[in-house]
């Protein structure tokens, strides 16, 4: 656990760095943000009052400290456009994104692992080649293409599933598949190569010499070892999945975090954009920690240092 605690502490400078980077990047825009916010039709007194209220006349470092202080107690500022607390808006959007991402992950892992394992077992024959070809296609398809294709075929042409998010489980299926499609391809490829490598290991011979049948060897002895690199990759994928969520949420009109970010840009709503970026980054970092944890559960050698 000591090792894990060290890892958690190690993320703090990264997290602070993210806050600082985003903070600075969003504030190097020339001009008073209040002027941008109000447009040109307000008198100087209103501008001054708002500037003072929002603290934009303070030195930037103080602004940063105040922001971090606020963030620690869950206060990420107020939306320019909607005059609502950003935290509240994020909390409203978050369940949609989390549900979408979870379903996408389940889909990606399920499909990716199964096809990867089958391809590895049927190494170099027709099924393997077909699966790997499709998976490379999957990796190379832009998410908006997958989304539009699925929407066109299954919602519009066949009418099997809803076109956009309606709050039902069925309406989340297409977005989740669209979002998980790329990851499924990567998981399948990684699982295949890792499993093929593991199957060459000496302990696989031992397991077979013991009398384990092929299926039991794969499930009992090879899979756990071959999952190690897949887990690491999956953590990296979380980041690209959140990127992808921006697209799927846009196509399927899901009011999640990604959509919040897109509209924030169009509304030039800085506090909301800042909050969403911060939040997604926290999710990515948490995901990496989770992967580390999973890795140590799967691989006893990591626990040695405890």
């Amino acid at each position, binding site marked *: 656990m000591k090792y894990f605690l060290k890892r958690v502490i190690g993320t703090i400078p990264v997290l602070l760095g993210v806050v600082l980077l985003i903070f600075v990047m969003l504030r190097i825009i020339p001009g008073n943000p209040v002027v941008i916010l109000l447009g040109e039709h307000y008198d100087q007194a209103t501008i001054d009052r708002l500037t003072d209220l929002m603290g934009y006349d303070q030195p930037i470092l103080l602004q940063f400290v105040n922001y971090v202080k606020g963030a620690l107690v869950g206060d990420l500022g107020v939306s320019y456009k909607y005059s609502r607390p950003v935290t509240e808006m994020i909390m409203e959007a978050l369940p949609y994104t989390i549900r979408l991402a979870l379903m996408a992950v389940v889909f990606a892992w399920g499909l990716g692992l199964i096809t990867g394992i089958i391809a590895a077992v049927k190494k170099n024959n027709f099924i393997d080649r077909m699966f790997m070809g499709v998976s490379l296609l999957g990796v190379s398809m832009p998410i908006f293409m997958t989304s539009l294709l699925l929407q066109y075929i299954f919602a519009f042409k066949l009418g099997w599933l809803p076109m956009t998010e309606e709050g039902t489980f069925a309406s989340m299926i297409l977005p989740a598949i669209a979002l998980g499609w790329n990851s499924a391809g990567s998981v399948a490829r990684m699982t295949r190569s890792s499993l093929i490598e593991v199957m*060459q*290991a*000496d*302990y696989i*011979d*031992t*397991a*077979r*010499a*013991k*009398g*384990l*049948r*092929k299926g*039991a060897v794969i499930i*009992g*002895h090879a899979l*756990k*070892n071959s999952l190690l690199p897949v887990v690491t990759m999956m953590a990296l994928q979380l980041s690209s999945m959140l990127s992808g969520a921006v697209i799927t949420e846009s196509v399927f009109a899901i009011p999640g975090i990604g959509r919040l970010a897109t509209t924030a840009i169009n509304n030039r709503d800085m506090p909301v954009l800042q909050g969403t970026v911060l939040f997604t980054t926290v999710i990515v970092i948490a995901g990496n920690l989770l992967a580390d944890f999973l890795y140590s559960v*799967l*691989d*006893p*050698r990591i626990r*040695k240092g405890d």
Partner: protein
Amino acid sequence: MEEKNILEIRGLKSYFFTDNGVVPAVDGVDLDIPEGKIIGLVGESGCGKSMTVRSVMGLLKYPGRVVEGSIRFDGREIAGLKENELRDICGKDISMIFQEPMTSLNPVIKVGKQVRETLLIHDRSISREEADRRVIEIFKKVGISEPEKRFNSYPHQLSGGLRQRVMIAMAMICKPKLLIADEPTTALDVTIEAQILRLMKELRDETGMSVLLITHNLGVVAELCDYIYVMYAGKIVEQAETFELFDHTAHPYTQGLLDSIPRIGRNADRLHTIPGVVPNLLHLPKGCAFCNRCELAEKSCHDQGVELREISPGHKVRCIKPIEHKEVTGS
């Protein structure tokens, strides 16, 4: 003397079908293992000895496969058995120990569970508690101290010698009729090596199982084995009872192997080695496979193939001109 063979291999051929051509890794091997005996299979690395036993266990790696030949275990033909039928025999009646204890155990599973698994596969009716008890028992028997504690260890927490003891425990737990040990001590220290070999002999004496010991070290087999096969380039080149082989070595290759064992009391300032390297199995010489490295080779050795022939009862050699031994009195 009527001996029953637990394993009889006849005309075994295992080839590797590579992009560069067919590699005859095992090329017509006959081998018998009598009940209760320790048999040695000796040769340099790459001579096909591991491939022979891997053929028996169904563990040949792609692109290798058994091309022809018969493998009879306990009177039953097991060459060409379906994978699952072979697996039912492996681990229960025939078990195997591998060369590298460092990599032969699954790194992410506790060693006790790995040993227990063997038992659970082959005896479905056994309870988990009973199985655990049996594992502890076998751990004690193979000389693992603190067996209860070791049960929950992961392989990386054990030394090489301990891991090999775990491997032996795993191989022994179902009381097999035949134990195949593929260079079990090559990766270990000399002191550990002696312990492990002694343990194997004790286990044989106790259980009456047969052992096939594969090694490149003739010194090891001399102490342990009843009968020895010497293999070179996929073929058996000499076979005899241990004393016969050491006293009346007939094949120049066996002689070379013997000479390369450093021995106290002999002229030790120069260590004998066999010149040259193992030939490429893709391009074997037309005649005797050893002819290019043989100091005694003649023209006929290069030209014509050689069959295995019996030169005295139980002693066979694959050589046109086997070494003659003058009978020295008192030898």
